[in-house]
């Protein structure tokens, strides 16, 4: 029988909290940027201009067809050196967090764009017609009339996707960035208590994500009501 020893957890809590802040930070930036860029992509995808629509379709198709880990690795390898060249930063500057945020934002935008596309299509055609009939340009109709309703209709799905994204941030361990999962792993490795630390980290993810899912369910009920 394995002998559990949880004693290394209390002392590691400040370090784990630092990691949690990284995880939440990446999630927040990726959700905000991902929804913004994803919405632009969704509008482009539905554009009558073929080239614009094809670009968006290609972008979404590409990011949905490659594993997230691979995208993260690309960005850890490419973005830091690129940014250093462009911004003339020293090699000591740690760009892993920034590149993780960029990678997640670009990747998640593909998924968010599909959600927003469904949202836009869920708004009745008559709404757009009414906006156009009032003299709005197609973009004004989209921005003032269709998107607010699409966003509202899709809010539960967008938040659910954010919860998944939060879990996926653990993948930044490939860059040895100390997010919550990475921090837990490091502590466990150091103290020889990997099993306990990973169980603890798993429990934390579980509690946070189920609480968030529950909140989304409540919200969904309220939106539908």
């Amino acid at each position, binding site marked *: 029988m394995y002998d559990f020893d949880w004693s290394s957890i209390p002392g590691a809590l400040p370090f784990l909290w630092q990691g949690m802040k990284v995880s939440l930070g990446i999630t927040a930036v990726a959700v905000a940027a991902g929804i913004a860029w994803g919405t632009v992509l969704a509008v482009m995808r539905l554009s009558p201009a073929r080239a614009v629509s094809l670009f968006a379709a290609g972008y979404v198709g590409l990011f949905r067809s490659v594993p997230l880990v691979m995208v993260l690795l690309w960005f850890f390898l490419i973005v830091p050196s690129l940014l250093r060249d462009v911004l003339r930063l020293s090699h000591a500057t740690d760009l892993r967090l920034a590149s993780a945020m960029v990678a997640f934002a670009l990747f998640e935008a593909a998924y968010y764009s599909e959600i927003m596309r469904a949202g836009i299509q869920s708004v*009745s055609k*008559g*709404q757009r*017609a*009414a*906006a*156009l*009939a*009032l*003299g*709005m*340009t197609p973009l*004004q109709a989209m921005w*003032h*009339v269709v998107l*607010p*309703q699409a966003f*509202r209709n899709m809010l539960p799905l967008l938040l659910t996707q954010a919860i998944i994204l939060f879990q996926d941030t653990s993948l930044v361990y490939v860059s040895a960035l100390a997010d919550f999962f990475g921090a837990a792993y490091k502590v466990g490795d150091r103290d020889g208590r990997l099993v306990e630390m990973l169980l603890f980290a798993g429990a934390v993810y579980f509690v946070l994500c189920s609480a968030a899912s529950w909140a989304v369910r409540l919200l969904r009920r309220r939106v539908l009501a």
Partner: protein
Amino acid sequence: MISVRDVYKSYGEVEVLAACSVDVRKGEVIVVCGPSGSGKSTLIKCINGLEPFERGQIVVDGVEVGRRGTNLSRLRARVGMVFQQFELFPHMKVIDNLTIAQVKVLGRSREEARRKALALLDRVGLREHADKHPGQLSGGQQQRVAIARSLALDPVCMLFDEPTSALDPEMINEVLDVMVGLARDGMTMVVVTHEMGFARKVASRSSSWTRAASWRKPPRRSSSRSRGRTARGSSSPRCCTTDGPALDRLSPKPPLIAGQSLSAGSI
């Protein structure tokens, strides 16, 4: 004001408008009746460019609708349109429904737009509902708001696409009253409706500027009705008669006739 010349429009195989022509002069109220599926709604959607058409010419207040390069948004801002399903913006308060296009399209100030909106809500009798959301209003109230929303842009003419067809019977009159008021104020209107009462009312006021027309032979019941009416009030419009003076349309494809019972029933 509105001139439609030989317009053709089809959805795939189905020809909806064929050689459709109509002229609407300033201050005229044209009532368009006819069975469902006979292209009535399509015609008014073509007039403000919401639907493209294949051939022919539509000129609204000197602007050619179908020409490439026509600024459709600017044209539509001057042509009011009221939809069967109201199409108020559900995420905005009633007052914002009335101000948004004034501010975003016409560039009016918020205060000016608000003043105009409240005055119009007053006119349709809904001023006290300004801060509600459309979902809190009855169908008839929503449609009155929709009319006010169009009027807020000071349109040169108004298009009505079956404005009372989605309403419960007891709410139809409150909307028709607003429309009658508009007609009496001299608004140029094209109204697709099954409400013969409306056509008659507006006509009894001044039949000379009211014409009604239909695309095709209407179902026998309504045609005999309107003839009876014509006989009674000599000046009433020629509603739902086959000899509509302004609009001509080749008969639609047979399947479309199925819509007749609907239109007859809703009168």
